[in-house]
């Protein structure tokens, strides 16, 4: 390859150059912004004028924000315009990608998701920047510092060459030809030869458009309470930040929670694993910061009201931010590959991410420790009967939950570290993650349920316990008693054999009752309680939903009569797949299901599965579900299986395809199988029962327009089919199918027919055409336009158009519900033989396509066809044809035996009772945070 400079055609390099410049300026101004705002804080603390530093900070942050927005704008433009010279555009878009998925393409890659994170920091910081409040310097100094690190992830500075080059960051504007070495780039016109790889099929849905921005806003918003805390430490102000930070913390918990919940909803709706939470490492790592944040909010509330738990609040918010960065580190480093089902693409940024990860906890905790003694603590410690004590206990429980989940999810990291020191170390892994996490977190949920009840009824700085005790216990005990009754009642339905689940259920009811009780008593005095009711009662409802949909989950797609004894398996190994043969109802657990039909639209193939409940008493419940699959562009692979769910208020029925015959998954496979079939040429005598091997066949001509999924009539088409009825000794029920030949534009097409019961395939060989059409060459035809009542004469026939028939009465016409059909009745008199007979051709429209049912008189071989309706002239167009052949007695066919079945699907169907309680409870919980945010916003000064 000549190392000269090639003048490439069609490239738009200016955008990438501008973009790279903007990336550098965003990095630089983040640094200046941090230095300025930090200096402003120090000046303020020392009592000196800080306005100049603040102004410099404002300008810097403003320019930083503009740079970030410019980068995003440029990248969007390149994606929309499909400039494939850029690697990012090539990797994530394609010519055929619908516009609505451009957003998804934007954040499909690491560069895009970093930009999304950075974008939200700019927006959130922008609010402080615009408001110019008291805490502007505190918050923006920290945000700028965080942005320094995030911007550095997008710099794309390379030092040195080759694979070992030292690089800082990845650059979203890198050119394809600079990132990949391929011979095509020797071609100056390479751009016209390539097309983008496109978006992963699993990501082509609306969830990919809304889930990442919400989740990243959640992540970005955790920086705010952290910034208030750290900025506060720098300013030596330890309490004033509490009031303004509280609504921000509530907002963060609400949005981050919403983002996590969306992930669960996406998994439930679009993935086939059958659930909304799998304790997958990626899921866990987004949950853990949220748990820590909730702990922080509770200690924050206590600190605001009583001054206790102030130190804990700092710690919680620092840890929350740390966990967000840790989460991004784990996900982007690919270390979770072996324990997670999510796909990972290594970015090569591990070292940088590690620095980012280590920097903030070290900085924050060092600052915290430095200020430790100066942080005010109340003289007296919390009373055991006080609310601050119980809420503190709650925050500890949440903290422990977060630590446990983090520890077990980080096992791959621990393994990596241990292997570094001891090469013989055997990596540890959790055997059954779902079971493991459920067992642990059950206790956390139980404690939270109980504590949220007790916590509500205790009061801050409880000084009058002696007098209050009676009232407190009365409320708690009544709630406990009712909870016990409700638990017992619910257990009649819930399949909770383990006592742990039963106690958890009690705790959930307890949380709902105590909080409702408390709400009723205090709402008039203190309407703020509504927010906390939403969250705590919501939590309880959510737990009940989790128990119901988890413990009472039913696999419907199992055939109870299947022989399992051979493998000696235990109950755990539930078979969740069942096979459905097209058209054959199959009895499953509680329902009868039939795979009725399927249809193709581009690369989407949708299956219609009809369900009917097997309840003997009540009205039969019937419904149809339509799961679908998406092929890749050349139909050699199924890229995604998409489920379909039937939602009722008290349960969901969730179904999806787990498998298809190999010929249907990969059409190349289908071609291979077809090529491997051994078609044997035989002659069939028409009208007689012919035996071929084990099969019995009766054949007769069929001249109707074929009704085949892949065939559409065109003017000038000539078709002839053979209607074959077949059965065998083993399968005595006859099946009738019609293979046919099509002659169009002098080309011959064979349409074969498959008989599913006996598994034979029949097609008509070319010699069939010779036998039939040779004689059809002698066909004569004519076209006429007639009105009702008209007569015409042709070839020795007198044809009178007697009447129009609506609906048509021709027995050969098999009408369907939505057909628009019209028939014409002719009385025909054959002069030569003095015969009179009727012909009734039919013209119909089905699913927007035109069909004809011609009518032929076998004796004279006169065929009539109604070809057009002319409403404006009140006339009809007809075609008459005369086949002067004698039907051959024998026709050749080709028959193949033992054809592999392709008319089945493998289906999995699960019923989730009570799952709406989960969605209801979790939404209420998040609503509580947003309500709290609104309430606290008013009292933030």
């Amino acid at each position: 390859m000549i190392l000269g400079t090639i003048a490439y055609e069609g490239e738009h390099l200016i955008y990438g150059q501008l973009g790279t410049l903007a990336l550098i300026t965003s990095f630089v101004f983040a640094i200046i912004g941090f230095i300025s705002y930090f200096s402003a804080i120090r000046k303020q603390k020392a009592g000196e004028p800080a306005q100049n530093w603040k102004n410099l900070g404002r300008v810097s942050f403003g320019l930083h924000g503009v740079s970030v927005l410019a980068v995003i704008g440029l990248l969007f433009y390149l994606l929309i315009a499909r400039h494939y010279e850029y690697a990012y555009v090539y990797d994530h878009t394609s010519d055929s990608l619908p516009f609505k998925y451009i957003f998804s393409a934007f954040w499909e890659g690491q560069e895009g998701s970093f930009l999304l994170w950075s974008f939200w920091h700019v927006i959130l910081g922008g609010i402080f920047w615009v408001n110019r409040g008291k805490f502007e310097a505190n918050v923006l100094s920290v945000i700028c510092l965080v942005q320094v690190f995030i911007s550095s992830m997008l710099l794309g500075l390379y030092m040195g060459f080759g694979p070992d080059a030292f690089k800082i960051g990845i650059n979203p504007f890198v050119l394809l030809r600079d990132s990949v070495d391929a011979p095509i780039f020797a071609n100056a016109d390479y751009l016209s030869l390539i097309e983008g790889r496109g978006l992963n099929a699993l990501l082509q849905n609306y969830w990919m458009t809304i889930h990442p921005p919400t989740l990243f806003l959640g992540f970005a918003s955790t920086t705010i309470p952290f910034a208030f805390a750290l900025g506060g430490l720098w300013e030596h102000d330890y309490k004033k930040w509490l009031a303004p930070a509280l609504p921000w913390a509530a907002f963060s918990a609400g949005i981050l929670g919403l983002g996590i919940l969306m992930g669960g909803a996406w998994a439930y709706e679009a993935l086939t694993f059958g659930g909304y939470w799998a304790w997958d490492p990626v899921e866990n790592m987004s949950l853990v910061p949220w748990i820590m944040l909730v702990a922080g909010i509770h200690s924050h509330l206590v600190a605001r009201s009583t001054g206790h738990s102030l130190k804990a609040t700092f710690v919680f918010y620092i840890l929350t931010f740390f966990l967000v960065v840790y989460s991004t580190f784990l996900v982007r480093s690919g270390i979770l590959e072996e324990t997670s089902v999510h796909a990972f693409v290594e970015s090569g940024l591990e070292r940088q991410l590690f620095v980012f990860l280590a920097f903030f906890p070290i900085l924050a905790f060092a600052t915290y420790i430095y200020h430790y003694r100066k942080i005010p603590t109340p003289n007296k410690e919390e009373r055991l009967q006080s609310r601050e004590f119980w809420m503190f206990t709650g925050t500890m429980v949440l903290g422990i939950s977060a630590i446990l989940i983090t520890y077990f999810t980080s096992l791959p990291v621990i393994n990596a570290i241990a292997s570094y020191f001891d090469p013989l170390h055997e990596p540890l892994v959790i055997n059954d993650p779902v079971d493991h996490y459920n067992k642990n977190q059950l206790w956390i949920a139980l404690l939270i349920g109980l504590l949220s009840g007790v916590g509500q009824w205790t009061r801050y700085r409880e000084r009058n316990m002696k007098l209050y005790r009676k009232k407190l216990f009365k409320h708690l005990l009544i709630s406990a008693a009712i909870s016990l009754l409700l638990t017992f009642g619910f257990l009649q339905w819930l399949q909770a054999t383990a006592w742990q689940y039963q106690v958890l259920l009690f705790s959930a009811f307890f949380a709902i009752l105590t909080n409702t009780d408390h709400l009723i008593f205090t709402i008039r005095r203190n309407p703020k309680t509504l927010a906390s009711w939403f969250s705590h009662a919501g939590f309880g409802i959510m737990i009940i939903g989790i128990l119901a949909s988890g413990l009472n989950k039913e696999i419907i797609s199992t055939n109870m009569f299947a022989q399992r004894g051979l493998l000696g398996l235990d109950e755990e190994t539930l078979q969740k797949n069942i096979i459905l043969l097209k058209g054959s109802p199959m009895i499953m657990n509680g329902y009868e299901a039939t795979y009725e039909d399927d249809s193709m639209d581009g690369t989407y193939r949708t299956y219609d599965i009809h369900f009917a409940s097997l309840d003997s008493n009540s009205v039969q419940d019937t419904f149809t579900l339509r799961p679908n699959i998406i092929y890749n562009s050349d139909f050699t692979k199924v890229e995604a299986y998409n489920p379909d769910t039937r939602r009722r208020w008290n349960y969901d029925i969730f179904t999806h395809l787990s498998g298809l015959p190999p010929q249907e998954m990969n059409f190349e496979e289908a071609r291979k199988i077809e090529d491997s079939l051994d078609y044997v040429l035989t002659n069939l005598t028409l009208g007689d029962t012919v035996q071929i091997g084990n099969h019995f066949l009766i054949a007769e001509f069929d001249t109707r327009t074929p009704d085949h999924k892949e065939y559409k009539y065109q003017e000038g088409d000539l078709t002839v089919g053979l209607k074959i009825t077949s059965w065998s000794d083993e399968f005595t029920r006859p099946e009738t199918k019609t293979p046919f030949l099509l002659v169009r534009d002098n080309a011959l097409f064979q349409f074969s027919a498959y008989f599913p019961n006996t598994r034979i395939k029949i097609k008509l060989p070319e010699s069939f055409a010779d036998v039939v059409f040779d004689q059809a060459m002698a066909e004569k035809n004519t076209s006429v336009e007639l009105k009702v009542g008209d007569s015409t004469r042709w070839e020795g026939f007198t044809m009178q158009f007697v009447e129009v028939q609506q609906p048509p009465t021709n027995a050969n016409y098999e009408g369907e519900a939505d057909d628009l059909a019209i028939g014409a009745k002719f009385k025909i008199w054959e002069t030569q033989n003095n015969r009179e007979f009727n012909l009734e051709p039919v013209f119909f429209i089905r699913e927007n396509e035109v069909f004809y049912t011609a009518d032929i008189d076998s004796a004279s071989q006169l065929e009539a066809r109604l070809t057009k309706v002319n409403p404006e002239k009140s006339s009809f167009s007809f075609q008459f044809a005369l086949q002067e052949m004698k039907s051959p007695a024998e026709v050749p066919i080709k028959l193949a035996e033992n054809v592999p079945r392709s008319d089945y699907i493998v289906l999995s169907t699960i019923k989730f009772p009570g799952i709406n309680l989960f969605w209801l409870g979790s939404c209420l919980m998040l609503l509580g945070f947003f309500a709290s945010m609104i309430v606290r916003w008013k009292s933030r000064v």
Partner: protein
Amino acid sequence: MNKTLIAAIILILGALSVIIFTSSDVSSYGTFAQAERSGERLKVVGQLSKDKDMVYDPVKDPNKFTFFMKDNEGREEKVILLQAKPQDFELSEQLVMTGKMKDDTFIASDMLMKCPSKYNDEEIYIRSEAAGE
């Protein structure tokens, strides 16, 4: 001592005891030999034996997929996975099976499959060949 400190210590001890008591939930990746010896459920890491038969006949049983796998010690055994055959199974680079050993077969209820990553260069190379015709 401070009540809150006591509460904190109790809870931390609780967490530690959880970690210790659930130590049976955690184990190292096993081999077929270990599975045979202990008779318990564990995870076995290995590679698909591409030269041996893979049988999935959904018409007979949609929940049974049989193939052969070699573990990290090099021992090859027959594996029955109680699920449908996943796509691109033949292309897998590494398999992690969860299950038990029964007689001479490993019965697995779960599988995690590692597939090769796409290679940019190859894609472009192939495309340019086609376009050049």
